[in-house]
């Protein structure tokens, strides 16, 4: 009996064979004593195991075991609640633009005291970019006494989309 036949015999025992192959195995069993003996051994092992699974009682008391489970559940619940109450991480997406805006304002304030006054009535210049996902553009009009800074997400198309944040500084 080859290995394939042995595995077929096992599959027959486990009711995993299609009807046609089951009939083939039955024919084999009718003529082959070795196959019958092997089937008997496999069946014996199957039955003995199924009826005699070893017992392994939990080596801890009910209260102690439950206290550890409960502690873990409550720890996870608390962690989830903290995330929910803190608004999750949603606020963080505003952090970079806000920081950029603050830095731009700081830069403008410093520039106001240290840079020479432009002769032209107005000028447009990119001041500085402080975050990868945020940009800013500013212009100053001497005649109007105004200094305007746009801070926007880089994914925004500055020429067509409205700026995400608008800061205006009047001189």
């Amino acid at each position, binding site marked *: 009996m080859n*290995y394939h036949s042995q595995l077929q015999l096992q599959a027959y025992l486990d009711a995993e064979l299609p009807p046609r192959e089951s009939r083939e195995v039955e024919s084999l069993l009718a003529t082959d004593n070795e196959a019958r003996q092997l089937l008997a051994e496999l069946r014996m*092992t199957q039955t003995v195991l199924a009826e005699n699974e070893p017992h392994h009682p939990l080596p801890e008391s009910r209260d102690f075991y439950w206290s550890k*489970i409960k502690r873990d559940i409550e720890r996870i619940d608390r962690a989830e609640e903290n995330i929910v109450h803190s608004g999750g991480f949603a606020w963080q997406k505003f952090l970079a633009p806000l920081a950029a805006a603050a830095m731009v304002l700081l830069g403008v304030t410093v520039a106001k005291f240290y840079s020479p006054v432009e002769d032209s009535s107005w000028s447009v210049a990119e001041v500085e970019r402080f975050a990868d996902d945020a940009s800013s553009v500013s212009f100053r009009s001497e005649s109007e006494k105004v200094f305007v800074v746009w801070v926007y997400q880089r994914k925004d198309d500055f020429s067509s989309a409205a700026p995400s944040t608008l800061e205006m500084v009047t001189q």
Partner: protein
Amino acid sequence: MSLNRDYSAVLDPDLVRLAQKGDMVAFEELVARHRDKIYARAFSMMRNEEDAVDLSQEAWVKGWQRLVQFQGDASFVTWMTRIVINLCLDQLRKHKRQRAESIEALEQDGGGVERQMPVVTVNPTERLERSELRERIDRALNQLSYEHRTVLILHEFEDLEYKVIAKKMNCSIGTVMSRLFYARRKMAALLAGLKREQAQ
């Protein structure tokens, strides 16, 4: 309110419904009822008391978190058993990656020794006390590699089909059949004490 209730007479499906609404006392009752079964399954796969305690506890925590997903298609304890089995399989895979293949596994994969084992014709478990028989089975299970033991447990104790076992163990149905065949043959030999005789 629930703290004053005695849940000992409440059926599992009702306890599950209460637990799904957040009643932790109902869940505690479910843990108390089935903790031995869940632990025993973890132990049978891990063969280690500490791992079995940790993984069975982890299974209960996951069970609580996923309780809303439980639809009642199978019994609650069957559902919990599947969770602990999956956790054990994950852990065993991690262990396997960390250690070299056992000599026994190499021998099995390379030699096909199961084909040459003599057939056990007499039931070696006859006239054994049940406790003695269980002890013997336990010792024999200990001598199998984790792949063979796991297939045997999933098939003989959990009654899973070849294709389900193959999916759980990330292998082919052919591999499951081959491992199961080897495991059964080796168990028969171990129970009959043939291995000891062969060594002498």
